[in-house]
């Protein structure tokens, strides 16, 4: 514990540097805007701004990009409460009771409860991350190629199991992502794969054009401007402070949401979305007045908002400690670290302590900044919401083009982005979730390398994956997950994932 505190002190010495503070603030501000604005989610925001971090060192880059991620969880609640539009998918559940509170003239109180809940959950999440990540990283040092292969398979299966679109669809998307990840020169043999004499494809397909296309442009194509409302229920800022009863009603939901969110965050999948949904269900279940839900229940705002923030922090545990992205956002953040020459994983704590601990310490500071940003500046964000979408989306397309082009100064990348935008639009029409595709693309090189190394190590013996205890345990969990999925398919049971799909579809916006 003492060693952890010493390391955290090192982290704070990095996080309190004026330049790091500036980029943390910038990330939080942009994240809040990304969360507030309908039509652009955290993944698109991070992907678009990723190339802008190339001139920065790894610490500043990851601090800023992570700030966008957890900042968007704060900002998403503003549109949910004031407009009944989730600025970010994880805020879908906040729409229900947040907007009902706003209609009753309690918009200010709902915004404060959402911001304080997000702050408490975010901070609790970072404390848990501080305690949990280093021991997991230490344990993961025992991992060899077979364990990594099993872990990546487990990650994909978890994602598929947690997905609201169903196992075959999710795995189909993951397979497509893995296939896209195979494009380019094979690093072990030098063979060109699927490059069709286009020299730019020799290095493979980058994550930025794919993520920006699928989530940025794809979202714009699915959102015609005439369907985006600019109607805002104006908050009574004079009533920003919740009453004593409202505070009392929010304490336990915030605590429960924080713990639940963190635990779900560690598991692969769209954790922040699932966490807010499950937290809402939990609060309704434990409530003595469940009939109040949907009519402005304070717990219906406090629980889900806390859970989605805590989950976004929990998602950093497998990314930092194992080098395993649990969703598309952590996949892009991982790609950002790799671009800066800092591979995430068990060696990160020892090899780059300044990045690891600086990043964690910056999240404590970032959560404070977000609390300070979100409440006093809510009026500014409401003004931003009034920008007509017809003027907003052309700007987003401009940022997409600049962002993608600046990665490699390659126009081929911009064309890939455009193709991916069209693909993203079509995938949404056919109810496919593009997130597993991005995840597959990111893990493809690591997966292929560890799979081939395992086979070479064992002289072609597949049993290497079941003879080693850690790999064996991971594969047993994989089999259990497949069994559970098959069971729900056979029984055609309508479980929480079906309800989540319905809730996500019901919002009509489908943000990433």
């Amino acid at each position, binding site marked *: 514990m003492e060693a952890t505190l010493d390391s955290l002190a090192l982290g704070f010495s990095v996080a309190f540097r004026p330049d790091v503070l500036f980029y943390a603030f910038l990330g939080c501000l942009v994240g809040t805007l990304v969360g507030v604005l309908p039509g652009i989610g955290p993944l698109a925001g991070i992907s678009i701004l990723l190339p802008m971090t190339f001139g920065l060192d790894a610490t500043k880059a990851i601090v800023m990009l992570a700030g966008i991620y957890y900042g968007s969880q704060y900002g998403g609640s503003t549109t949910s409460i004031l407009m009944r539009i989730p600025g970010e998918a994880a805020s879908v559940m906040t729409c229900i009771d947040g907007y009902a509170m706003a209609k009753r003239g309690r918009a200010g109180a709902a915004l404060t409860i959402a911001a304080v809940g997000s702050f408490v959950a975010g901070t609790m999440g970072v404390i848990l991350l501080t305690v949990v990540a280093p021991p997991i990283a230490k344990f993961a040092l025992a991992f060899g190629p077979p364990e990594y292969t099993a872990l990546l398979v487990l990650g994909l299966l978890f994602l598929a199991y947690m997905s609201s679109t169903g196992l075959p669809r999710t795995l189909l998307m993951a397979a497509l992502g893995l296939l896209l990840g195979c494009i380019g020169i094979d690093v072990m043999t030098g063979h060109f794969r*699927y490059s069709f004499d286009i020299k730019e494809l020799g290095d493979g397909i980058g994550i930025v054009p794919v993520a920006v296309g699928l989530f940025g442009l794809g979202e714009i194509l699915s959102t015609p401007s005439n369907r985006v409302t600019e109607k805002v229920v104006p908050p009574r800022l004079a009533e920003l402070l919740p009453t004593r009863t409202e505070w009392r009603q929010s304490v336990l939901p915030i605590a429960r949401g924080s713990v639940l969110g963190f635990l779900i965050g560690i598991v692969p999948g769209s954790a922040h979305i699932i966490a807010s949904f499950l937290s809402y269900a939990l609060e309704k279940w434990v409530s003595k007045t469940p009939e109040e839900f949907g009519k402005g229940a304070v717990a219906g705002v406090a629980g889900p908002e806390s859970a989605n923030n805590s989950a976004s922090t929990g998602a950093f545990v497998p990314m930092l400690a194992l080098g395993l992205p649990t969703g598309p956002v952590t996949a892009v953040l991982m790609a950002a670290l790799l671009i800066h020459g800092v591979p995430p994983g068990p060696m990160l704590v020892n090899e780059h302590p300044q990045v690891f601990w600086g990043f964690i310490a910056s999240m404590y500071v970032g959560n404070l900044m977000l609390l300070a940003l979100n409440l006093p500046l809510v009026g500014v964000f409401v003004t931003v919401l009034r920008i007509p979408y017809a003027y907003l989306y052309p700007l987003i397309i401009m940022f997409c083009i600049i962002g993608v082009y*600046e990665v490699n100064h390659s126009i081929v990348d911009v064309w890939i982005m455009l193709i991916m935008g069209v693909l993203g639009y079509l995938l949404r029409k056919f109810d496919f979730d593009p997130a597993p595709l991005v995840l597959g693309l990111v893990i493809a090189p690591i997966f292929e390398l560890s799979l081939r190394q395992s086979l070479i190590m064992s002289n072609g013996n597949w049993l290497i994956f079941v003879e080693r205890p850690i790999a064996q345990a991971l594969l047993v969990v994989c089999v259990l997950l497949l069994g559970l999925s098959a069971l729900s398919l056979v029984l055609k049971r309508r479980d929480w994932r079906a309800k989540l799909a319905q809730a996500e579809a019901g919002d009509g916006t489908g943000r990433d």
Partner: protein
Amino acid sequence: MQLRRDHVAGTVMLLAGVLVLAASTDLPFGTLASPGAGMLPTVVIVLMIAFAVLLLLAAGASPPIAATDWTDATHAVRVVAVTAAAVAFYIPLGFIASIALLLFVLTFVVERKPFFNALAYSGGATLLAYLVFGTLLNAPLPRGLWH
């Protein structure tokens, strides 16, 4: 038999898988002890085909294809066409001209905003972006006509 959404999705994925598998014949699979460049792609394509078949088998439970809402398609096609033109002209015309045209056409033609509003918006936003990215952040934006 009514054509359903997953009939179309499954068939497209199945065909894509078969086509890519056919394009992978020149990649060496290798052996288990010495896996070649074609091993992972082949395994992944076979899985993709298998999942597409699963999708087709369960397609009866999916909504009819006619129920898919395509009312936003016209808008999407216009946006894609204008963006494609901007990408095509991005290098030859340069950042300022291509992006200003992109913004103007999207706001004036696609969104039918007033001419002078669209003109001021596209000019102002492009110049601001050029100042921020090209001047402040030193990003090498294509100069095209101004080269």
